[in-house]
């Protein structure tokens, strides 16, 4: 059996992971299709229907300007999920690159890069992120890059370890003997073989980034209105927590569901991609 079909077979057995994959895909598609799917206009103010509790017309209720919460959650999800994906790509990409280069070249390059990794790893992430986020006019891209810039270290270490293992294999020697360049060997032979831990790390990073954005939003350092994220919706709803609790409960639930699903998925991928994991 090819390794790919074996992978799918293993993943399918992980029912929770499959369900999570479905949830993530559905939520992402729904948010992506928000302009079509949403029952109301994104910023449609309706002063006759302010602070409505969840009901048949406004499924999740309305805010203090009568704006439909369900609609706003769909639109907010676009930015939140985008940040999650972008930050994961930035962090995982950079981490893989650092790890691969360090592991492949070894010696002084390795020493230098890994000491740098140690230094960044030793600084408490959230406080440093708070400082960095306060410098930028928070847009989705700069926010993702900032989060990614502080979440690559674990990937770098894992990838380096994998590369050290792979580097010693004969087929790498064969490739080198055939005159392949270092760049080619790293991108064509080394990285594809370290893909398991990279994919798992990237999956978990998506959830992590969504949570971090919401933490920054809480301090007023996240994405600024009028752009909406689940994080800054939560922040706005803080003051009305007692009178209109649905305004904070539903955006929080949205974060919880997506991050939960992403974590289950990462867990399932880990089992499916690890050939040594026992099958039960």
């Amino acid at each position, binding site marked *: 059996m090819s390794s790919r079909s074996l992978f799918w077979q293993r993943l399918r057995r992980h029912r929770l992971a499959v369900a999570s994959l479905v949830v993530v895909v559905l939520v992402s598609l729904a948010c992506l299709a928000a302009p079509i799917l949403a029952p109301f206009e994104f910023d449609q103010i309706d002063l006759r229907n302010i602070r409505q509790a969840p009901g048949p017309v406004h499924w999740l209720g309305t805010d203090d300007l009568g704006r439909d919460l369900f609609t706003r959650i769909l639109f907010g999800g676009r930015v939140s999920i985008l940040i999650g994906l972008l930050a994961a790509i930035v962090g995982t990409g950079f981490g893989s690159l650092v790890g691969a280069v360090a592991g492949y070249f070894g010696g002084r390059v390795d020493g230098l890069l890994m000491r740098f990794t*140690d230094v960044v790893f030793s*600084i*408490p992430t959230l406080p*440093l992120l708070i*400082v960095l986020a306060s410098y930028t006019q928070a847009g989705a891209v700069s926010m993702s890059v900032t989060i990614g810039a502080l979440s690559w270290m674990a990937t770098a270490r894992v990838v380096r370890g994998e590369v050290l293992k792979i580097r010693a294999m004969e087929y790498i020697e064969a490739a080198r003997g055939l005159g392949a360049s270092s760049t080619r060997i790293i991108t064509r032979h080394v990285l594809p073989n370290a893909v398991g831990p990279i994919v798992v790390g990237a999956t978990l990073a998506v959830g992590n980034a969504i949570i971090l954005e919401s*933490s920054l939003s809480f301090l007023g350092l996240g994405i600024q209105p009028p752009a909406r994220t689940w994080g800054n919706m939560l922040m706005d709803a803080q003051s009305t927590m007692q009178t209109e609790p649905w305004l*904070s409960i539903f955006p929080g639930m949205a974060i919880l569901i997506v991050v939960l699903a992403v974590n289950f998925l990462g867990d399932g991928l880990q089992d499916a991609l690890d050939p040594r994991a026992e099958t039960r």
Partner: protein
Amino acid sequence: MTRYVVRRLLQMIPLLLGITVLLFAVIQAAPGGPEAALLQQDRFIDPAAIEAYRERLGVDQPVPVQYVRWLGGVVRGDLGISFSTTRPVSEMILERLPATLELMGASFLIAAVLAFLLGVTSAIRQYSWFDHLGTGLSFLGIAMPVFWFALLLQLLFAVRLGWLPVSGRSTVGVESLADHLLHLILPATVLSFRYVAGWSRYLRSSMLEVLRTDYVRTARAKGLPERVVVWRHALRNAVIPVVSVMALNLAGLFSGAVITETIFSWPGIGRMFVTAMFARDYPLLMGILLLGSTMVVFFNLVADIVYGALDPRIRYE
């Protein structure tokens, strides 16, 4: 062992130096400089006054000069003078440190006790409803946005039910241990949640591995009560990898304290950090970040030492 510890302590020096360089560079990269906090107040300030202000703070000097000056102070235990209060940074940090350590300590204790009970019970009843509940809870702990969880608890236990105080470290005018502990419950629960989740899962899998070993079977075979086999024989070995993870996470509690303290108006370092960030109080920010980083580096070492001390098969030479 002593030689190993000394060697590790010496290795900490270049690491900490690297950390200070990076931190200093990041803090100095702030657009606008410390006077930006003054200018935010929207009134006209004479440029000459701003120049004098910068000179007084020492930020008119080139960055490397500032760094060397700052480092020279740090070596002598002087973290500089806070821009916003003009008091020594070390004094301000020491003043707030007990509150933060108290919160971290309480959270650590709660997390450890719950994680042990949950982890061991899930392991001996693998795939039972209790085990599945534990798995569910632990994923919740990782996926829950901290401040949302905090707000929900605040709403339920403080506002609706009125059982616990909403925020603060004690009621004004009341000086009692009970009052103090009541104030501690919510923030410590919030801060520990994530670690209950992580550690109990970790202990569960470690326990499952140990329970399958021969010596556990021998212990059972010679007729020891299951309670003794699990809690005395098996747990002793299962706990080793978990303890080092716990030590590593201690420093993570510091990061978490920033959000938790801000929500619950807990008068600790985390909240001071947020204030310092908005006031662009560079020396105070540097001091707090350096303290946090030192904790990380220190607890890394503790984790390794504990690991070696608990497992006699590991020898550091």
